């Protein structure tokens, strides 16, 4: 496997990576989940994090976003040249980080349109759009994603199908145009049509914002139309392999067993947890 463990620098550029996760060890309720994880993503790159269930992939996304359900015991998260390890999620978002949730929440009483306006407020570009201009922009994005505009007047996530929830995640991605987006199982549970819409959304984001992507997935189908720069494999809370896009085909053919056999076992009392703690409660 080429380039294995060469992960502290954006490959090929020699430049400072946009996102640099170094030796990240994190736990929840006293149980260690991530163990010494390293990850470096350059500006505009697309990275894929794969691994079997329970590897800690979603936890990595949540810890990078600053989910307070996890304790960072060791290591750091540096984003855009700034150590954000102790920063709250809202400040990380404002700095240009984005996490698309595996299971987006429902918030009764809050219309989607009001939520989007609050999310955009104060951001350069979209935050400057007022009233009708903002609504027009949102409707354009909804059209682009084949999303019924009626959803914009509904309460956030309430009564949305799984596909509509993921479309709304994509709409936010396109609206906010973050510097780096972590897509946590965005493709899970989607039918072929919805998967196509999500893929289009990712393409549109790359075109419009030239943003970096960290795609957490089990499913290689969403990667078919994407240029993937690096692939990382997580097992039991550790990054155990890294390579170029050819690694995806290898995983597709042979699964994760080879990586699981090669990975060190968890120490007693340690575990890797796929489902974020907050969502599991």
């Amino acid at each position, binding site marked *: 496997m080429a380039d294995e463990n060469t992960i502290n620098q954006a490959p090929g550029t020699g430049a400072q990576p946009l996102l640099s996760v170094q030796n990240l060890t994190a736990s929840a309720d006293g149980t260690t989940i991530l163990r010494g994880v390293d990850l470096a993503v350059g500006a505009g790159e697309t990275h894929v994090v794969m691994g079997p269930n329970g590897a800690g992939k979603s936890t990595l996304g949540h810890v990078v976003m600053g989910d307070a359900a996890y304790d960072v015991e060791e290591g750091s998260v540096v984003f855009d040249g700034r150590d954000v390890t102790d920063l709250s999620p*809202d400040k990380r978002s404002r700095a240009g980080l984005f996490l698309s*949730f595996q299971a987006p929440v429902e918030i009764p*009483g809050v219309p989607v349109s*009001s*939520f989007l306006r609050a*999310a955009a407020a104060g951001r350069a570009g979209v935050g400057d759009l007022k009233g009708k201009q903002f609504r027009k922009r949102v409707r354009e994005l909804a059209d682009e994603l084949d999303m019924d505009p009626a959803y914009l007047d509904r309460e956030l996530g309430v009564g949305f199908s799984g596909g509509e929830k993921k479309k709304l995640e994509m709409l936010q991605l396109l609206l906010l145009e973050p510097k780096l987006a972590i897509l946590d199982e965005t493709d899970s549970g989607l039918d072929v049509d919805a998967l196509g819409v999500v893929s289009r959304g990712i393409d549109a984001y790359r075109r419009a914002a030239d943003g970096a992507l960290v795609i957490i997935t089990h499913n290689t189908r969403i990667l078919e139309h994407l240029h993937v720069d690096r692939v990382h494999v997580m097992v039991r809370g550790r990054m155990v392999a890294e390579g170029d896009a050819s690694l995806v085909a290898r995983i597709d053919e042979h699964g994760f067993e080879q990586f699981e056999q090669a990975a060190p076992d968890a120490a007693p009392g340690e575990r890797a947890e796929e489902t974020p703690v907050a969502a599991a409660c």
Partner: protein
Amino acid sequence: MATTPAAPASAAPTITLHHVNAMPAPTWHRLRVNETDVELPADLRAEPDVQVEAPQALLGEPGAFEAALKRMEEHLESTGELPPAAVRPRGGAAGEPSASSGAAAGQADGGARSDDAAKGPEEDPALDLPALSAFQAASAAVEASGSLERAFETGMGPEAFAYLREAAGEPVVIATAPGQQGARAAVRVRGVDGAASAAAVDVVAAEGSEVSVSIALDSPEPGAGAVGCSLRVFAGRDARVSIASTQTLDPAWIALDDAGLMLDERARVDVRHTVLGAGRSCTGLAGDLRGEEAKAAVDTRYLGTGERALDFNYELRHHGPKTESAMNANGVLAGASSKTLRGTIDFVRGCKGANGQEVETVLIADERADNRTVPVILCGEDDVAGNHGATIGHVRSEQLLYLASRGLSPEAAEQLFLRATLEEAALTAPDDATRAGVARLGRALLDDFEEEIA
């Protein structure tokens, strides 16, 4: 009016309205939610500032409401649905609790339901009757009287009704002609500093007619006092009545919004209460679904901020067969606000095939906020369907994380909940004046509020 002076030594003198928003069947003594008292400055003068926008032809004469009740009563007598007047027990007969019912129509007998009901069945000479609770006895007495005037009630109860009617003076009467469609009227009550500014409104929708009435309780000028409305609605056979009441008072004001409905056969009444402001806000509504297949729906939206106290009481009483009722409340409580909402669906014997449901969703955006939701279903008929449900919750950690991941701090998240409620109220406001009131409140609470809804 049976108000009681209540003046602590060091405070300004006040009067108290007792038994306001009292539940018809008070069973929650331990939680102290059965009813509330409202203290008002004793020196409030009655000075209504009421604007009415309606075609002249839509304005009726005082007494139209009572006349409509009388006609309906006579019709029900003729069909055997009410006993003939000659054989009815006289009101106030020995042992008969006067109950809360009827105070609003007969006006100001001042009887508070709790006191009257407390007389109980032990004073009833009809000892061969099975033992009844105080509520059951009072209710049975009203039913036996066969009087719609006695049965009619408003949600806030007799004392508040009497206070508001006295403060308001001559009622505004909105009366449609049979079959009239598209009738619209707007009543705007504005706060007057140092005064009780109230409107008394009677809506009488004739058979087959349709009317929409918007009511705004607003305080465009600074000051303090009470602002209220006493509303009575008679919906005749096949009539449709739509009421939109919006309260946008600043925190220095007290809001008193009282309503009572009487529905004839196949009548439909839709009420929307939007309660956004006032330091103390009381909203009450009682509806009598008397005619077969009558329908009443109440949709309540509220917002609690700062230290505001909101109090609601809804009672929908099914008399007619196949009647339908729905209460839907949706609110946000922020800051150190508090809210009590009582919702009672009462299936009276004989309302076979009736269906009633009540649902409340409360989002509590601040740990200091206090919410009390009291759904009650009373059932005196077996062939009915009644449902209630409530979703009450603090904002969960995963919801806050989601909002934070989109750049919203906890403070911004709380503002979002307020903004969402206010924006919806502004966008659904029935007229520009009401919308202006919402915008004024919104500007006081949020930056750029008006700009965002433009």
